[in-house]
């Protein structure tokens, strides 16, 4: 070990340590950077980050229509099998039989909020909601059916 | 009996009791801890005599240094928590005899010796004086013992380094041999 490297090591060590202390010192003096939420107190005006993921939901429009075609892409994408698509046969106005979803069963108790199903969906039928108060007394209540009863597929979505 | 005497007897009792305990206990770690208390008791007696410097050195060298070293060597070598085997009877008798002889010798010396009252002027135990006395080459100076001890420590340090280095070289050699042997075997 030569003397130059020795002194350079000490210098580099010191400057990098000081850099770290500058960062924490900045946070110490700037309290507005604090990101902790006082949760039960500010429950009414809670501000969640944009990308917070609480559960999978299927948005419906006012005519009780969703965009799900039943392509099963989400079911295949899910790494731990928390989505199950159940089909039914529907008659189109022309009298043809058409495959449509009966139930889109979503097991919240298995879900890890990995977002892979939302990314896999070709027709943007499901998305992540920001609700997070999921505690229930009965585990069965965590098995949810995402499409509303009597809902139909939106026109123009194939 | 003044307060000062009471404190002396308390310190002496601490020293003696923990000394006796350190030789009678069969847990080696406890023996080390009791030895430590003995050393601290002696340091306390130095404080009582107002030899603060000696007391501090006693704590640094014996309690802080040697006792910790002993505890470390116990950690590294002994099975923690196991009792030592019981000593044989003849060993017990002989060690008691040795202790008694040593005690008798010391007591005879102490009782026979007349402690003359020192007429030398009292030196203030300030650091300055201690430092000057330590490096004093005239009579009653401590330059020679000081230097001899520092030579001893230097020799010990060099010895440590030599031992550590030789071990390392042997390791290297065996490693190289291993490396050479592997292609031959395969």
């Amino acid at each position, binding site marked *: 070990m030569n003397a130059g490297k020795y002194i350079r090591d000490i210098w580099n060590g010191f400057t990098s340590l000081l850099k770290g*202390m500058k*960062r*924490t010192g900045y946070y110490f003096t700037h309290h507005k950077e*604090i990101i902790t939420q006082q949760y039960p107190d500010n429950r009414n005006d809670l501000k969640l980050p944009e990308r917070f993921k609480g559960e999978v939901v299927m948005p419906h429009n006012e005519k009780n229509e969703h965009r799900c075609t039943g392509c099963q892409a989400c079911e295949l994408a899910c790494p731990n099998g928390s989505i199950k698509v159940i089909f039914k046969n529907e008659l189109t106005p022309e009298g043809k039989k058409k495959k449509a979803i009966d139930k889109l069963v979503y097991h919240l108790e298995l879900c890890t909020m990995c977002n892979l199903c939302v990314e896999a969906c070709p027709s943007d039928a499901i998305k992540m909601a920001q609700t997070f108060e999921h505690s229930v007394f009965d585990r069965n209540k965590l098995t949810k059916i995402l499409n509303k009863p009597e809902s139909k597929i939106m026109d123009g979505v194939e | 009996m003044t307060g000062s005497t009471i404190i002396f007897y308390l310190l002496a009792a601490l020293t003696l009791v923990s000394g006796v305990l350190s030789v009678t206990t069969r847990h080696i770690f406890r023996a080390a801890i009791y030895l430590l208390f003995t050393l601290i008791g002696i340091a306390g007696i130095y404080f009582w005599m107002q030899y603060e410097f000696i007391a501090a*050195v006693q704590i640094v060298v014996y309690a802080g240094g040697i006792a910790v070293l002993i505890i470390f060597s116990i950690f590294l070598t002994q099975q923690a*928590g196991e009792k030592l085997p019981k000593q044989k009877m003849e060993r017990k008798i002989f060690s008691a005899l040795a202790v008694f002889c040593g005690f008798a010798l010391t007591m005879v010396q102490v009782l026979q010796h007349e402690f003359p009252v020192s007429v030398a002027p009292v030196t203030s135990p300030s650091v300055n004086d201690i430092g000057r006395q330590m490096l004093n080459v005239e009579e009653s100076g401590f330059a020679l013992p000081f230097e001899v001890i520092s030579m001893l420590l230097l020799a010990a340090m060099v010895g440590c380094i030599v031992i550590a280095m030789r071990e390392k070289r042997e390791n290297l050699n065996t490693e190289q041999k291993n490396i050479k042997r592997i292609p031959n075997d395969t």
Partner: protein
Amino acid sequence: MWSFSDIANNIHNWLSNQFNTTWTMIFEMLIAGVCVIGLFALLGLVLVIMERKVSAWMQIRLGPNRVGPKGMFQSLADTVKLMVKEGMTPWGADKTLFNLAPFIAMIVAMLLLAPIAFASNFQLWDINIGVLYVSAVSSLSVISILMAGWASNNKYSLLGAMRSGAQIVSYELSAGLSILAIIVLTGDLRFSTIIASQADGWWIFKGHIPVIIAFITFIIAVTAETNRAPFDMAEAESELTAGFHTEYSGMKFALFFLAEYVNVFIVCAIGATLFLGGPMPLHIGLWEGFNHAMDYIPSSVWFFGKTFFLIFLIMWFRWTFPRLRIDQLLRLEWKYLLPISMINLLLITAMAILKWHF
């Protein structure tokens, strides 16, 4: 204007008027003991809440905020909880040593408090070897850790004790050398002399760069000696659960916890006394008005201000730096701190002989 030394003198005079010498001394010892214990309890409360708040703000959190205004009584609640908790002794432990260890830690911390000057002329014991006494007694604190680690009869505890032993023994060297730097400049070990020598300026300003290097070495070494992060190898939550105090609970754990914080306070007080002038106010050269204004601030405020500044610095280290590995820790000491502080001591000796300092 009344000060700590005046109060102490008044009490002393009143007691010596009422009683004879022996009883005066006994009463003074009792008062001093009660004051020390009170100070310990107060320090424990203040430093724990300070550490939690500092750590929270440095990690962009809020910290304790439920008990009392802004969570300021959190450590009181913690104290109550620790006091009513059961103090267990494990089945396989060496019971005597296991129960003795926390008290040794506490006694060592108490002994260290004796020579510290909390205000000008306010000291429990102005021993003539002050600094040597402190470094001697602080070397005993490792004993309690070794005792606790061994007596717990637990592998984590033993490992923690071994690590902290190696750590404290080696970092004592550079702490001692950096303290020696100030002793070389002052020429005395007595705390009152060291403080008096800084009446015209603190050593960190008077001693040029070598004293600043000594100060930095001192801070690093005492951080290691008090077993605090980034040198908390003895506890190392993520590796050894809690190191030497894994098996402790209730009040015995609280004693270890308190001893750690009191030790931090003591080393910071010593650092403040040696390098930052202890109870001496800040004086700048020839600014008469400024110096005069500074003299109005009581000396105890100066002392506690400097000490808490150093404590904050050590907390800042703790919540910024990651923990070192044991080999990195020993390399830092033996390859960097020790040679640097030795050369630095040589420089300071030359400076003291040639009178280059102010």
